[in-house]
């Protein structure tokens, strides 16, 4: 048996599982999105229609998609910004106690129930919480719908910060500290070493971490549900309402397909930008 045949044989179980678990549901969802829906019934009926897509061309829906990607993007960027120094510290520190403390904190945050975290945020930063004045400080009254966006941002940040930090620790551990030491021994100040040596080498890891936390943010359902006060709705919330509350599967499926296309386009665009900005040897 030649190597290529052997490779195909070995790959086939994985490909089969991938087809059954990923491709089949997405294909069925795409087909369902083209079915007509009759109010009061459950699920799509026979026939084909584009109505589920055309109704999403209403300007209001652009806001829901915009909110999903905008708040998700800001939360992901903030998470990376906060995670990078923390991860660098955890990877480079010579004090084992500090490393244990950082890992312990991150893993505790990961294991803590998300629902408990969200209600804690609501009790603390919500309109009747002790830190509701945060809204006044940033010029957004605590009872306003805009403040609900701030709460959703805080919730998402809580959700993805430990993930981002743990991923970035791996990235920094894979960068040899000798490169930084070499730059320092040649007289480069620490900030210059960080910006010209460590950061460029960490870009692929940063990008991977960003994509994962961004995907986690835009596909999040619970955070906007609990902290959005019914006025900040992500595309996931719209989908849930359709699938679960009114059994309008075709419309929910259409939103799912659009989200898939938009998220895929964004990932492709970000990867393309990084390819242009980062030298090929660093990418490898």
């Amino acid at each position: 048996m030649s190597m290529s045949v052997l490779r195909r044989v070995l790959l086939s179980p994985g490909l089969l599982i991938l087809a059954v678990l990923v491709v089949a549901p997405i294909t069925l969802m795409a087909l369902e999105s083209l079915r007509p829906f009759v109010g009061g019934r459950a699920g799509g009926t026979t026939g084909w229609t584009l109505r589920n897509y055309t109704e999403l061309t209403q300007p209001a829906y652009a806001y829901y998609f915009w909110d999903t990607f905008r708040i998700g993007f800001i939360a992901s960027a903030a998470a990376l910004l906060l995670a990078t120094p923390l991860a660098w510290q955890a990877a480079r520190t010579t004090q084992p106690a500090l490393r244990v403390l950082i890992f312990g904190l991150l893993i505790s945050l990961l294991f803590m129930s998300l629902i408990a975290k969200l209600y804690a945020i609501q009790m603390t930063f919500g309109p009747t919480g002790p830190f509701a004045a945060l809204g006044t400080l940033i010029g957004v009254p605590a009872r306003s719908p805009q403040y609900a966006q701030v709460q959703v941002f805080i919730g998402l940040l809580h959700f993805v910060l430990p993930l981002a930090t743990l991923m970035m620790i791996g990235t920094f551990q894979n960068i040899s500290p000798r490169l930084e030491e070499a730059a320092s021994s040649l007289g480069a100040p620490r900030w210059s070493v960080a910006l010209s040596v460590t950061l460029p080498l960490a870009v692929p890891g940063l990008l991977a971490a960003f994509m994962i936390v961004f995907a986690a943010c835009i596909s999040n359902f619970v955070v906007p549900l609990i902290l959005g006060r019914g006025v900040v709705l992500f595309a996931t919330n719209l989908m849930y309402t359709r699938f679960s509350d009114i059994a309008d599967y075709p419309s929910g499926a259409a939103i799912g397909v659009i989200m898939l296309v938009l998220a895929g386009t964004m990932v492709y665009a970000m990867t393309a930008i990084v390819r242009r900005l980062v030298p090929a040897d660093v990418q490898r």
Partner: protein
Amino acid sequence: MNRLSRRMLLRDLGAAGLSGFAPFTGIDGALAAQGEQLLVVMWGAAWIEVCRKIAEVYSAKTGDSVAWELHAGGAMAIVAKMKPLWPHVSYNLVSGWDPVFRAMIREDWVLPVSLDEMPALKDIPPAFFQKNDKGELVSVPLSTSGAFWGYRTDLVDSPVESIEQLLEPRFKGKLCVPFPVNLTGLLMLTLAVQRGGNERNIEPGWQFLKELASKGQIGRVINNNSEFIDSMSSGETSVAFFNIGAWTTVRKRFPVKILSRLKDNKGYLFNEGFAVIKNDDPRKVAAAKAFANYFATPAINEQYNWPLGEGPTNPNARANPDVADVFYSPQELTQYAYIPDYEYMSSQVDAWAKRWEQEITPLIRRA
């Protein structure tokens, strides 16, 4: 000394796993201790608490055991959940209310019930039952309930006598309202009634809602009982339109005025209860009907409704005096109560939910 072999371990794990999954797969027989095992869908909060107590006593008497599954969000969600699984659904009884029953009847999932099989139903007024196209009874009504406007008197400085007052600046950000899928759009109906409309002439309701949204009066849009209780209990909002069961929970902790006798609006009544779901196993069906019948007997109907703050459907059961002021005497019914056409309303919910997303949420966001 017994040694644990791999085969023994697999056998024990398999048995444990199968018994855990039995309610979902319909596997019973040797694994069930005795009697039938029923899977019943119920609401959370006060509903499941009282049901567990009732079921414990029932199981001890009959040997039938009950596994509970909770509604996720509004009760209508169960229809969406059952649709892709049908006919492989293991639920024997589903708790719901009029629009949910209508949706399940349209899908032909519900078994008829008869007074011969379920003698406790003989006492219940015929008007409370849902019927199918053949005129057969297809619901087991357990509670008379309703949705009402109300407010926390400790957070509102002067009484509310008409919901037109909700446009006043003092209510900015203080209103808690359900998303149209919740209560099958009763919010739209009450607002429409306020401006001379009804369920088939809902446009005045949308106009009123737009006024409320654009003035920034809506502080919270809720999807379920828990969110309502959370919002009203925390004081985030102080005025709301919601079902009496959730209001009763808030009333236990805070001073609340339920506006069930408004001069220019109504209280919106409905029935809650069980639907018996079709099943190939006649023993399961018989056990499910017996369990539902038990809930309809006077003593249990009273025990069930008392903590929920809902009215019993069995006339021989007493109503909780704490909510007696909310419900109506027969003379008051025509003046203050409204029983909507839920069949029609449930057919409109999809369109109303989308209209809310397109027209109301953007106004709330901009206010």
